[in-house]
């Protein structure tokens, strides 16, 4: 059934209390971590940019939590919550942002460009749309290897849907019937460009029909709806229903990066239901349900703060990257770089 457009906005959501609270705690940790990164950025402690996912944590965490060990995850720049839920440590994130040689990218890459490919956690390149076919490739290889039952999730913003890479990869996933879940966070703006200048179709999820894949829409401010929709999409991909497209409607509650004051965002959008903060909504919901006392939420926040401060303190004691100890070698075939004539790889 193509384009089933599972719309969780109005769906009866059967709530899993434990899952909701787990998700909330990852969202909270992501928010606290990114607030800290922003303050380090303002204090000029971070080289390059800081890219936050404020307002997108509900969607992001739902992706991370829907995946299992052995699945593949290609997050984008606003997926701190999903990264944590998928298994990234706070320390890995901080070490990459602060350029520690002990981080997973060894100071060769910074900020959101981090991952562990051997663990199915793919480090993004900056060229939007490029990660989707790479997720396809992992899934395709597993098919050739006879490995079944794993899913790959790739995350994009609505801006990246305008790239040829996105189109090629979706079509490829569809042709090969791969268990790909493409999550599109339609946050209204690609940097400063409003979605009206990005695409002219009624709803991005309609594009699923054209690719012959299943499409789902969800209110990205609603954690319960996101958990449910991503859960369904991942399950359908896992059970052999082919690629799934999830389009979430939400608003980025920060600049593109912390250098950007986002003055271009329409105040009417900010005041609309889309402009609500998913983290606050989730907290209100938890308290409203009387699942925990307010003081418990405060305790969770303090625990998150401690965890982040500890990671920052650890990283600040790390050595600096040493350009003279660095191995300036871009290829794995070391013997080729040891040829005398391979001057392009000589270190002096």
């Amino acid at each position, binding site marked *: 059934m193509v384009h089933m457009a599972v719309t969780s906005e109005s769906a009866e959501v059967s709530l899993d209390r434990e899952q909701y609270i787990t998700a909330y705690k990852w969202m909270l940790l992501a928010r606290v971590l990114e607030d800290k990164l922003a303050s380090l950025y303002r204090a000029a402690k971070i080289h390059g940019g800081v890219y936050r996912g404020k307002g997108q944590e509900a969607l992001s965490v739902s992706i991370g939590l829907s995946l299992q060990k052995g699945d593949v995850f290609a997050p984008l720049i606003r997926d701190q919550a999903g990264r944590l839920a998928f298994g990234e440590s706070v320390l890995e994130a901080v070490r990459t942002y602060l350029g520690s040689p002990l981080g997973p990218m060894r100071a060769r890459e910074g900020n959101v460009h981090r991952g562990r490919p051997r663990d199915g956690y793919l480090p993004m390149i900056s060229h939007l749309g490029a990660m989707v076919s790479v997720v396809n490739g992992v899934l395709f290889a597993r098919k050739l290897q006879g490995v079944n039952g794993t899913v790959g999730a790739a995350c994009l913003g609505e801006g990246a849907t305008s790239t040829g890479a996105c189109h090629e990869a979706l079509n490829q996933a569809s042709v090969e019937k791969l268990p790909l879940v493409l999550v599109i966070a339609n946050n209204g703006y690609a940097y400063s460009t409003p979605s009206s200048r990005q695409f002219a179709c009624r709803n991005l999820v309609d594009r699923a029909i054209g690719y012959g894949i299943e499409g789902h829409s969800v209110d990205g401010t609603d954690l319960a709806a996101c958990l449910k929709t991503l859960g369904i999409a991942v399950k359908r991909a896992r059970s052999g229903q082919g690629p799934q497209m999830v389009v979430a409607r939400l608003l980025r509650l920060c600049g593109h990066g912390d250098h950007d004051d986002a003055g271009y965002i329409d105040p009417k959008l900010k005041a609309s239901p889309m402009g609500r903060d998913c983290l606050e909504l989730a907290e209100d919901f938890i308290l409203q349900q009387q699942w925990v006392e307010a003081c418990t939420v405060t305790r969770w926040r303090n625990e998150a703060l401690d965890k982040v401060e500890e990671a920052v303190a650890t990283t600040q004691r790390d050595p600096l990257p040493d350009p003279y100890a660095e191995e300036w*070698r*871009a290829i794995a075939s070391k013997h*080729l770089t040891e040829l005398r004539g391979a001057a392009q790889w000589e270190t002096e």
Partner: protein
Amino acid sequence: MSVTYLEAIREAQARALADDPRVFIYGQDVGAFGGAFKATKNLANEYPGRVIDAPISEDAMVGAAIGAALQGMRPIIEMQFADFSTPGFNQIVNHAATMYWRTGVPCPITIRLPSGGTSGSGPFHSQSMEALYAHYPGLVVVTPATVEDAYSMLIEAVALDDPVIFCEHKYLYYHLKADALPTEAMPVGKARIAREGRDLTIVAYSAMVHEALAVAEEFAGEGWEIEVVDLRSIKPLDTDTVMASVARTGRLLAVGESWPWGGVTAEVVARVATEGFNLLDAAPQRLNAKDTPVPYHPTLWAVHRPTSRSIAAAARSVLRS
């Protein structure tokens, strides 16, 4: 029995598929059809499920190869023509080429580029792209000029832990024959003295090696002994062999089929000039295609790229200076 350059490429892929279950081939029309040039003829039959037709999506083809390589496979990507690798350029130079350096995880992919001009092929089916790819860190770029190298270097390319740009020359596909497939091979990264001489070194690669050899033969009748160096690999570039040759001859002419701005011939001349200036008895020269798109008509094409005639003129000028 004889084997063509094209058959050697087919045989190398057959052997890679036979020897290593991690190898698969992905590209347009490579399956039952056997490829636009038949470089994968019958391989889909012989290795079911491992020689796979791709949609016309070069970006996604290379992207998928990257993912497969990360998952432990050794994909061979066939670009239908080297010219069509540009839609996949981003994935090649920004993704495959950066993967090892960024993450420490190797990205073994072989990307076959049917390269170079053939009569009547025009601007978009004739390009030589080795210089473009060699410019980017993280890629190995090879340009086999012989049947033996087409075979052995393709097998080595698949075995290497890096993305390899395999530039196979379309003109050589049918024109070049050997008695048999090689049993021994020079490694990637070593240049070869294709003909010994003492008066002038011509450095060439791919199809230009054969044009240079024709010139050397012609000049032998006049008493000149021209040494021809076949680079084999563009990156890494075997400067040692080039320099040793120039030390013997004192004169250098670098010949390439691609465009004149920058590129392999410029790199060769720059290295010899900076590292071996005192070896030179005359100013080094380089000869490339003209700085226009590749023309369609045979009479234009024959003048656009270096040929034995224009190489002979350039060689004469270096020998006289």
